[in-house]
Protein backbone atom coordinates (compact mmCIF):
# COMPACT_ATOMS: atom_id res chain seq x y z
CA UNK A 1 0.00 0.00 0.00
CA UNK A 2 1.00 3.64 -0.14
CA UNK A 3 0.85 6.37 2.50
CA UNK A 4 -2.21 8.61 2.79
CA UNK A 5 -1.65 12.26 1.83
CA UNK A 6 -0.14 14.60 4.39
CA UNK A 7 1.24 18.09 4.63
CA UNK A 8 5.03 18.15 4.69
CA UNK A 9 7.31 20.61 6.44
CA UNK A 10 11.08 20.45 6.53
CA UNK A 11 12.22 23.15 8.97
CA UNK A 12 15.94 23.93 9.06
CA UNK A 13 16.07 24.98 12.70
CA UNK A 14 14.80 23.65 16.00
CA UNK A 15 13.05 26.94 16.59
CA UNK A 16 11.02 26.54 13.39
CA UNK A 17 10.26 22.88 14.21
CA UNK A 18 9.02 23.77 17.69
CA UNK A 19 6.92 26.61 16.28
CA UNK A 20 5.15 24.11 13.99
CA UNK A 21 4.65 21.79 16.95
CA UNK A 22 3.24 24.65 19.04
CA UNK A 23 0.85 25.60 16.27
CA UNK A 24 -0.39 22.11 15.34
CA UNK A 25 0.15 20.07 18.54
CA UNK A 26 -0.17 16.30 18.24
CA UNK A 27 -1.09 16.66 14.55
CA UNK A 28 2.50 17.71 13.84
CA UNK A 29 4.18 14.32 13.90
CA UNK A 30 7.96 14.30 13.92
CA UNK A 31 9.64 12.45 11.07
CA UNK A 32 13.05 11.31 12.32
CA UNK A 33 14.68 8.34 10.55
CA UNK A 34 11.27 7.20 9.36
CA UNK A 35 12.26 3.57 9.94
CA UNK A 36 9.26 2.92 12.17
CA UNK A 37 6.94 5.72 11.07
CA UNK A 38 7.12 5.19 7.28
CA UNK A 39 6.41 1.43 7.43
CA UNK A 40 3.36 2.28 9.57
CA UNK A 41 2.33 4.93 7.02
CA UNK A 42 2.88 2.56 4.09
CA UNK A 43 0.40 0.18 5.70
CA UNK A 44 -1.84 3.08 6.74
CA UNK A 45 -1.62 2.05 10.36
CA UNK A 46 -0.47 5.65 10.82
CA UNK A 47 -2.05 8.47 8.81
CA UNK A 48 -0.57 11.67 10.20
CA UNK A 49 -2.02 14.86 8.75
CA UNK A 50 1.22 16.79 8.99
CA UNK A 51 4.83 15.68 9.11
CA UNK A 52 7.63 17.80 10.54
CA UNK A 53 10.78 16.33 9.02
CA UNK A 54 13.59 16.89 11.52
CA UNK A 55 16.35 15.71 9.17
CA UNK A 56 17.24 19.28 8.26
CA UNK A 57 17.63 20.34 11.90
CA UNK A 58 21.40 19.97 12.15
CA UNK A 59 21.52 21.23 15.73
CA UNK A 60 19.91 17.93 16.81
CA UNK A 61 22.84 15.88 15.49
CA UNK A 62 25.69 15.79 17.99
CA UNK A 63 27.56 13.55 20.41
CA UNK A 64 29.54 15.37 23.09
CA UNK A 65 30.64 15.21 26.71
CA UNK A 66 29.28 17.66 29.24
CA UNK A 67 31.01 17.08 32.53
CA UNK A 68 31.01 13.31 32.79
CA UNK A 69 27.73 12.95 30.92
CA UNK A 70 27.50 11.82 27.32
CA UNK A 71 24.99 14.05 25.54
CA UNK A 72 23.46 12.90 22.29
CA UNK A 73 21.21 14.90 19.98
CA UNK A 74 17.89 13.21 19.17
CA UNK A 75 18.58 13.14 15.41
CA UNK A 76 21.93 11.35 15.76
CA UNK A 77 21.66 8.25 13.60
CA UNK A 78 22.16 4.82 15.09
CA UNK A 79 24.95 4.35 12.55
CA UNK A 80 26.80 7.45 13.80
CA UNK A 81 26.41 6.22 17.35
CA UNK A 82 27.86 2.78 16.64
CA UNK A 83 30.94 4.44 15.16
CA UNK A 84 31.37 7.04 17.89
CA UNK A 85 34.64 6.87 19.80
CA UNK A 86 33.14 9.02 22.55
CA UNK A 87 30.28 6.56 23.00
CA UNK A 88 32.67 3.59 22.94
CA UNK A 89 34.84 5.17 25.60
CA UNK A 90 32.26 6.69 27.92
CA UNK A 91 29.10 4.62 27.42
CA UNK A 92 30.21 1.11 26.48
CA UNK A 93 26.85 -0.48 27.36
CA UNK A 94 25.02 1.85 25.00
CA UNK A 95 27.73 1.39 22.38
CA UNK A 96 27.53 -2.38 22.60
CA UNK A 97 23.73 -2.32 22.30
CA UNK A 98 23.36 -0.26 19.11
CA UNK A 99 24.43 -2.95 16.59
CA UNK A 100 21.59 -5.17 17.86
CA UNK A 101 19.11 -2.67 16.43
CA UNK A 102 17.85 -3.80 13.03
CA UNK A 103 20.21 -3.92 10.02
CA UNK A 104 22.94 -1.51 8.89
CA UNK A 105 20.68 -0.12 6.13
CA UNK A 106 18.06 0.75 8.77
CA UNK A 107 20.60 2.19 11.22
CA UNK A 108 21.89 4.51 8.49
CA UNK A 109 18.57 6.38 8.74
CA UNK A 110 17.15 5.41 12.15
CA UNK A 111 17.92 7.77 15.00
CA UNK A 112 18.48 7.45 18.74
CA UNK A 113 15.71 9.96 19.45
CA UNK A 114 13.28 8.22 17.11
CA UNK A 115 13.81 4.88 18.80
CA UNK A 116 13.42 6.39 22.28
CA UNK A 117 10.33 8.43 21.35
CA UNK A 118 8.75 5.46 19.56
CA UNK A 119 9.09 3.29 22.70
CA UNK A 120 8.56 -0.08 21.10
CA UNK A 121 8.61 -2.64 23.95
CA UNK A 122 10.90 -4.80 21.80
CA UNK A 123 13.41 -2.01 21.14
CA UNK A 124 16.94 -2.17 22.51
CA UNK A 125 17.80 1.50 22.99
CA UNK A 126 15.01 2.33 25.49
CA UNK A 127 16.22 -0.62 27.58
CA UNK A 128 19.79 0.69 27.51
CA UNK A 129 18.50 4.16 28.45
CA UNK A 130 16.69 2.80 31.52
CA UNK A 131 19.63 0.59 32.55
CA UNK A 132 21.94 3.61 32.33
CA UNK A 133 19.60 6.04 34.14
CA UNK A 134 19.59 8.31 31.09
CA UNK A 135 17.62 11.56 31.06
CA UNK A 136 15.53 12.84 28.18
CA UNK A 137 15.26 16.47 27.23
CA UNK A 138 11.83 17.58 26.02
CA UNK A 139 11.68 20.99 24.38
CA UNK A 140 8.84 23.29 23.39
CA UNK A 141 8.55 26.95 22.48
CA UNK A 142 8.00 27.53 26.21
CA UNK A 143 11.26 25.97 27.34
CA UNK A 144 12.72 22.60 28.24
CA UNK A 145 12.45 19.91 30.89
CA UNK A 146 14.49 16.82 31.70
CA UNK A 147 12.76 13.52 32.35
CA UNK A 148 14.42 10.45 33.91
CA UNK A 149 14.25 7.42 31.57
CA UNK A 150 12.15 5.42 34.00
CA UNK A 151 9.41 8.04 34.03
CA UNK A 152 9.73 8.78 30.32
CA UNK A 153 8.56 5.32 29.22
CA UNK A 154 4.90 5.02 30.13
CA UNK A 155 3.81 1.82 28.39
CA UNK A 156 3.12 0.58 24.88
CA UNK A 157 4.50 3.15 22.43
CA UNK A 158 3.77 5.83 25.02
CA UNK A 159 6.21 8.38 26.41
CA UNK A 160 6.07 11.47 28.58
CA UNK A 161 6.00 14.11 25.84
CA UNK A 162 3.40 16.89 25.72
CA UNK A 163 1.63 17.77 22.43
CA UNK A 164 3.83 20.86 22.14
CA UNK A 165 7.13 19.08 22.85
CA UNK A 166 9.72 17.19 20.86
CA UNK A 167 12.46 15.02 22.29
CA UNK A 168 15.70 16.85 21.53
CA UNK A 169 18.51 15.29 23.53
CA UNK A 170 19.41 12.25 25.61
CA UNK A 171 21.96 12.45 28.44
CA UNK A 172 23.80 9.40 29.74
CA UNK A 173 25.50 9.88 33.13
CA UNK A 174 28.85 8.20 33.71
CA UNK A 175 28.69 4.73 35.23
CA UNK A 176 30.17 4.54 38.74
CA UNK A 177 33.66 3.08 39.17
CA UNK A 178 34.00 -0.73 39.41
CA UNK A 179 30.98 -1.19 37.16
CA UNK A 180 30.59 -3.92 34.58
CA UNK A 181 27.86 -4.25 31.99
CA UNK A 182 26.40 -6.54 29.40
CA UNK A 183 23.68 -6.51 26.77
CA UNK A 184 22.40 -9.80 25.39
CA UNK A 185 19.39 -10.85 23.36
CA UNK A 186 17.98 -13.76 21.42
CA UNK A 187 16.44 -13.09 18.01
CA UNK A 188 15.46 -15.57 15.32
CA UNK A 189 17.76 -13.83 12.84
CA UNK A 190 20.32 -11.13 13.40
CA UNK A 191 18.59 -7.77 13.09
CA UNK A 192 15.11 -9.05 13.87
CA UNK A 193 13.26 -7.74 16.88
CA UNK A 194 14.40 -10.01 19.70
CA UNK A 195 12.20 -12.47 21.60
CA UNK A 196 13.88 -11.38 24.81
CA UNK A 197 16.90 -9.32 25.77
CA UNK A 198 18.53 -7.89 28.86
CA UNK A 199 20.82 -5.05 29.82
CA UNK A 200 22.72 -5.81 33.01
CA UNK A 201 24.86 -3.54 35.14
CA UNK A 202 26.84 -4.54 38.21
CA UNK A 203 28.82 -2.27 40.53
CA UNK A 204 31.18 -3.90 43.04
CA UNK A 205 32.32 -2.59 46.40
CA UNK A 206 35.94 -2.71 47.64
CA UNK A 207 35.45 -6.29 48.86
CA UNK A 208 34.13 -7.54 45.54
CA UNK A 209 30.50 -7.73 46.65
CA UNK A 210 27.68 -6.28 44.62
CA UNK A 211 26.97 -2.70 45.63
CA UNK A 212 24.36 -1.94 42.99
CA UNK A 213 22.80 -3.79 40.06
CA UNK A 214 20.33 -3.19 37.27
CA UNK A 215 18.52 -5.75 35.14
CA UNK A 216 16.31 -4.30 32.41
CA UNK A 217 14.48 -6.44 29.85
CA UNK A 218 13.00 -5.98 26.39
CA UNK A 219 9.89 -7.48 24.81
CA UNK A 220 8.58 -8.94 28.05
CA UNK A 221 6.21 -6.15 29.05
CA UNK A 222 4.68 -2.89 27.88
CA UNK A 223 8.04 -1.13 27.78
CA UNK A 224 11.50 -1.61 29.24
CA UNK A 225 10.98 -3.87 32.29
CA UNK A 226 13.21 -2.88 35.19
CA UNK A 227 13.45 -5.95 37.45
CA UNK A 228 14.13 -4.07 40.65
CA UNK A 229 13.38 -7.03 42.90
CA UNK A 230 15.91 -9.23 41.13
CA UNK A 231 18.54 -6.51 41.26
CA UNK A 232 17.88 -5.93 44.98
CA UNK A 233 18.54 -9.61 45.70
CA UNK A 234 22.10 -9.18 44.43
CA UNK A 235 23.02 -6.17 46.55
CA UNK A 236 25.41 -7.11 49.35
CA UNK A 237 26.07 -10.52 47.76
CA UNK A 238 28.89 -11.88 45.68
CA UNK A 239 27.91 -12.46 42.07
CA UNK A 240 28.06 -16.25 41.88
CA UNK A 241 26.21 -18.82 39.78
CA UNK A 242 23.91 -19.32 42.80
CA UNK A 243 23.11 -15.66 43.45
CA UNK A 244 22.69 -15.08 39.70
CA UNK A 245 20.29 -18.01 39.48
CA UNK A 246 18.26 -16.60 42.36
CA UNK A 247 18.12 -13.20 40.63
CA UNK A 248 17.10 -14.88 37.36
CA UNK A 249 14.30 -16.71 39.14
CA UNK A 250 13.07 -13.49 40.73
CA UNK A 251 13.28 -11.61 37.42
CA UNK A 252 11.25 -14.30 35.69
CA UNK A 253 8.41 -13.43 38.06
CA UNK A 254 8.76 -9.69 37.43
CA UNK A 255 8.36 -9.83 33.67
CA UNK A 256 5.08 -10.34 31.80
CA UNK A 257 5.79 -11.57 28.26
CA UNK A 258 2.87 -11.68 25.83
CA UNK A 259 4.12 -14.36 23.52
CA UNK A 260 4.00 -14.24 19.72
CA UNK A 261 3.96 -16.64 16.79
CA UNK A 262 7.69 -17.08 17.32
CA UNK A 263 7.85 -17.54 21.08
CA UNK A 264 5.39 -18.57 23.76
CA UNK A 265 5.42 -16.63 27.04
CA UNK A 266 6.97 -19.70 28.67
CA UNK A 267 9.81 -19.71 26.16
CA UNK A 268 10.37 -15.97 26.62
CA UNK A 269 10.53 -16.52 30.37
CA UNK A 270 13.04 -19.30 29.84
CA UNK A 271 15.14 -16.95 27.69
CA UNK A 272 14.97 -14.27 30.38
CA UNK A 273 16.32 -16.71 32.98
CA UNK A 274 19.18 -17.88 30.79
CA UNK A 275 20.09 -14.40 29.56
CA UNK A 276 20.05 -13.03 33.11
CA UNK A 277 22.62 -15.56 34.26
CA UNK A 278 24.84 -15.06 31.21
CA UNK A 279 24.64 -11.28 31.30
CA UNK A 280 25.38 -11.17 35.02
CA UNK A 281 28.45 -13.37 34.53
CA UNK A 282 29.74 -11.09 31.78
CA UNK A 283 28.95 -7.89 33.69
CA UNK A 284 30.66 -9.31 36.78
CA UNK A 285 33.81 -10.18 34.81
CA UNK A 286 33.95 -6.66 33.48
CA UNK A 287 33.34 -5.13 36.91
CA UNK A 288 36.22 -7.22 38.29
CA UNK A 289 38.46 -6.13 35.43
CA UNK A 290 37.57 -2.51 36.21
CA UNK A 291 38.34 -2.94 39.94
Amino acid at each position, binding site marked *: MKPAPFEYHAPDSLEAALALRAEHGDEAKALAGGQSL*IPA*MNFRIAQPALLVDLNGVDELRFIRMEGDELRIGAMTTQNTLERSELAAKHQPLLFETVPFV*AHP*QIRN*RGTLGGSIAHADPAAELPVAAVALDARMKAQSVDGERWIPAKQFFQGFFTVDLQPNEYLTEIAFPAMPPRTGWSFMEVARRHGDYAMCGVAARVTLDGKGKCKAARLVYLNVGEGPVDAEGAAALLVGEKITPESSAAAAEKASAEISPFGSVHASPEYQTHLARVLTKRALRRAHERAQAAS
Partner: protein
Amino acid sequence: MTDSLKLHFTINGQEHHGEAEPRLLLVDYIRHHLGLTGSHVGCEHGVCGACTILLDGQPVRSCLMFAVQANGREIRTVESLGTPEAMHLLQEAFHAAHGLQCGFCTPGFLMTLVPYLEEHPNPSEDEIRHAISGNICRCTGYQHIVDAIVLAAQKMNA
Protein backbone atom coordinates in the same frame (compact mmCIF):
# COMPACT_ATOMS: atom_id res chain seq x y z
CA MET B 1 -3.95 15.27 -2.87
CA THR B 2 -1.44 17.67 -1.46
CA ASP B 3 0.54 19.95 -3.71
CA SER B 4 3.68 18.69 -5.35
CA LEU B 5 7.00 19.98 -4.07
CA LYS B 6 10.13 20.73 -6.06
CA LEU B 7 12.91 18.18 -6.09
CA HIS B 8 16.56 18.46 -6.89
CA PHE B 9 19.12 15.72 -6.42
CA THR B 10 21.90 13.84 -8.18
CA ILE B 11 21.17 10.35 -9.38
CA ASN B 12 23.87 8.09 -10.82
CA GLY B 13 25.99 11.15 -11.48
CA GLN B 14 23.26 13.18 -13.22
CA GLU B 15 21.57 16.25 -11.81
CA HIS B 16 17.84 15.83 -11.61
CA HIS B 17 15.09 18.41 -11.19
CA GLY B 18 11.51 17.32 -10.75
CA GLU B 19 8.54 17.44 -8.47
CA ALA B 20 6.63 15.02 -6.30
CA GLU B 21 3.74 14.84 -3.90
CA PRO B 22 5.21 14.52 -0.37
CA ARG B 23 3.77 11.04 0.14
CA LEU B 24 5.52 9.57 -2.89
CA LEU B 25 8.14 7.07 -1.77
CA LEU B 26 11.64 7.54 -3.12
CA VAL B 27 11.67 4.06 -4.65
CA ASP B 28 8.44 4.77 -6.53
CA TYR B 29 9.83 8.05 -7.81
CA ILE B 30 12.98 6.31 -9.00
CA ARG B 31 11.05 3.52 -10.70
CA HIS B 32 8.03 5.33 -12.13
CA HIS B 33 9.28 8.86 -12.76
CA LEU B 34 12.90 8.19 -13.61
CA GLY B 35 12.27 4.83 -15.25
CA LEU B 36 15.08 3.18 -13.31
CA THR B 37 13.42 -0.11 -12.49
CA GLY B 38 16.47 -1.91 -11.14
CA SER B 39 15.53 -1.04 -7.56
CA HIS B 40 12.77 -3.44 -6.58
CA VAL B 41 9.84 -3.18 -4.21
CA GLY B 42 9.28 -6.31 -2.19
CA CYS B 43 7.72 -5.44 1.13
CA GLU B 44 7.46 -1.66 1.62
CA HIS B 45 8.36 -1.95 5.25
CA GLY B 46 12.10 -2.20 5.30
CA VAL B 47 12.37 -5.93 5.80
CA CYS B 48 13.37 -7.43 2.43
CA GLY B 49 16.12 -5.07 1.26
CA ALA B 50 15.19 -5.29 -2.45
CA CYS B 51 14.89 -1.48 -2.66
CA THR B 52 18.32 -0.74 -1.14
CA ILE B 53 20.07 2.22 -2.80
CA LEU B 54 23.02 4.40 -1.82
CA LEU B 55 22.22 7.78 -0.30
CA ASP B 56 25.37 9.87 -0.06
CA GLY B 57 27.28 6.59 -0.30
CA GLN B 58 25.37 4.76 2.47
CA PRO B 59 22.95 1.91 1.81
CA VAL B 60 19.39 2.80 2.82
CA ARG B 61 15.89 1.51 2.13
CA SER B 62 14.34 3.62 -0.61
CA CYS B 63 10.89 2.39 0.46
CA LEU B 64 11.37 4.10 3.83
CA MET B 65 12.08 7.60 2.52
CA PHE B 66 9.91 10.08 0.74
CA ALA B 67 11.24 11.38 -2.58
CA VAL B 68 11.18 14.94 -1.22
CA GLN B 69 13.67 13.86 1.45
CA ALA B 70 16.30 13.26 -1.22
CA ASN B 71 16.62 16.97 -1.93
CA GLY B 72 20.25 17.99 -2.21
CA ARG B 73 21.47 14.42 -1.80
CA GLU B 74 23.41 12.05 -4.02
CA ILE B 75 21.71 8.81 -5.00
CA ARG B 76 23.16 5.73 -6.63
CA THR B 77 21.07 2.83 -7.87
CA VAL B 78 22.08 -0.52 -9.31
CA GLU B 79 21.99 1.05 -12.79
CA SER B 80 25.19 2.91 -11.88
CA LEU B 81 27.20 -0.28 -11.44
CA GLY B 82 27.74 -1.82 -14.84
CA THR B 83 26.18 -2.87 -18.12
CA PRO B 84 25.62 -6.41 -19.44
CA GLU B 85 28.72 -5.89 -21.62
CA ALA B 86 30.86 -4.36 -18.91
CA MET B 87 29.75 -5.65 -15.56
CA HIS B 88 30.91 -4.36 -12.21
CA LEU B 89 33.32 -6.73 -10.50
CA LEU B 90 30.68 -7.65 -7.94
CA GLN B 91 28.14 -8.35 -10.68
CA GLU B 92 30.68 -10.55 -12.44
CA ALA B 93 31.24 -12.47 -9.23
CA PHE B 94 27.48 -13.00 -8.75
CA HIS B 95 27.34 -14.23 -12.33
CA ALA B 96 30.32 -16.55 -11.98
CA ALA B 97 29.33 -18.01 -8.59
CA HIS B 98 25.59 -18.32 -9.36
CA GLY B 99 24.72 -15.74 -6.72
CA LEU B 100 21.22 -15.36 -8.14
CA GLN B 101 18.33 -17.30 -9.55
CA CYS B 102 15.30 -15.08 -10.21
CA GLY B 103 17.36 -11.95 -9.51
CA PHE B 104 14.66 -10.02 -7.70
CA CYS B 105 16.79 -9.56 -4.60
CA THR B 106 20.09 -8.98 -6.42
CA PRO B 107 20.05 -5.18 -6.83
CA GLY B 108 19.52 -4.82 -3.07
CA PHE B 109 22.37 -7.20 -2.28
CA LEU B 110 24.68 -5.39 -4.71
CA MET B 111 23.93 -1.94 -3.33
CA THR B 112 24.42 -3.22 0.22
CA LEU B 113 27.73 -4.83 -0.70
CA VAL B 114 29.42 -2.13 -2.78
CA PRO B 115 30.15 0.12 0.21
CA TYR B 116 30.57 -2.88 2.54
CA LEU B 117 33.44 -4.34 0.52
CA GLU B 118 35.10 -0.95 0.29
CA GLU B 119 35.10 -0.76 4.07
CA HIS B 120 35.79 -4.49 4.67
CA PRO B 121 37.99 -5.76 1.84
CA ASN B 122 38.65 -9.12 3.54
CA PRO B 123 35.47 -10.30 5.24
CA SER B 124 35.18 -13.77 6.76
CA GLU B 125 32.20 -15.92 5.83
CA ASP B 126 30.60 -15.10 9.19
CA GLU B 127 31.05 -11.39 8.64
CA ILE B 128 29.56 -11.72 5.17
CA ARG B 129 26.47 -13.46 6.51
CA HIS B 130 26.12 -10.71 9.07
CA ALA B 131 26.52 -8.01 6.39
CA ILE B 132 23.73 -9.47 4.26
CA SER B 133 21.38 -10.17 7.16
CA GLY B 134 19.23 -7.23 6.05
CA ASN B 135 18.58 -8.68 2.58
CA ILE B 136 16.19 -11.51 1.93
CA CYS B 137 16.61 -13.97 -0.94
CA ARG B 138 13.89 -16.53 -1.52
CA CYS B 139 15.75 -18.54 -4.16
CA THR B 140 19.39 -19.22 -3.55
CA GLY B 141 19.57 -20.33 0.06
CA TYR B 142 22.33 -17.71 0.37
CA GLN B 143 25.29 -20.07 -0.01
CA HIS B 144 26.02 -19.01 -3.58
CA ILE B 145 25.61 -15.36 -2.62
CA VAL B 146 28.22 -15.83 0.09
CA ASP B 147 30.47 -17.60 -2.44
CA ALA B 148 30.04 -14.70 -4.85
CA ILE B 149 31.05 -12.19 -2.20
CA VAL B 150 34.12 -14.22 -1.27
CA LEU B 151 35.03 -14.34 -4.97
CA ALA B 152 34.48 -10.61 -5.39
CA ALA B 153 36.69 -9.85 -2.39
CA GLN B 154 39.42 -12.09 -3.80
CA LYS B 155 39.23 -10.32 -7.18
CA MET B 156 39.25 -6.92 -5.54
CA ASN B 157 42.41 -7.79 -3.63
CA ALA B 158 44.15 -9.45 -6.58
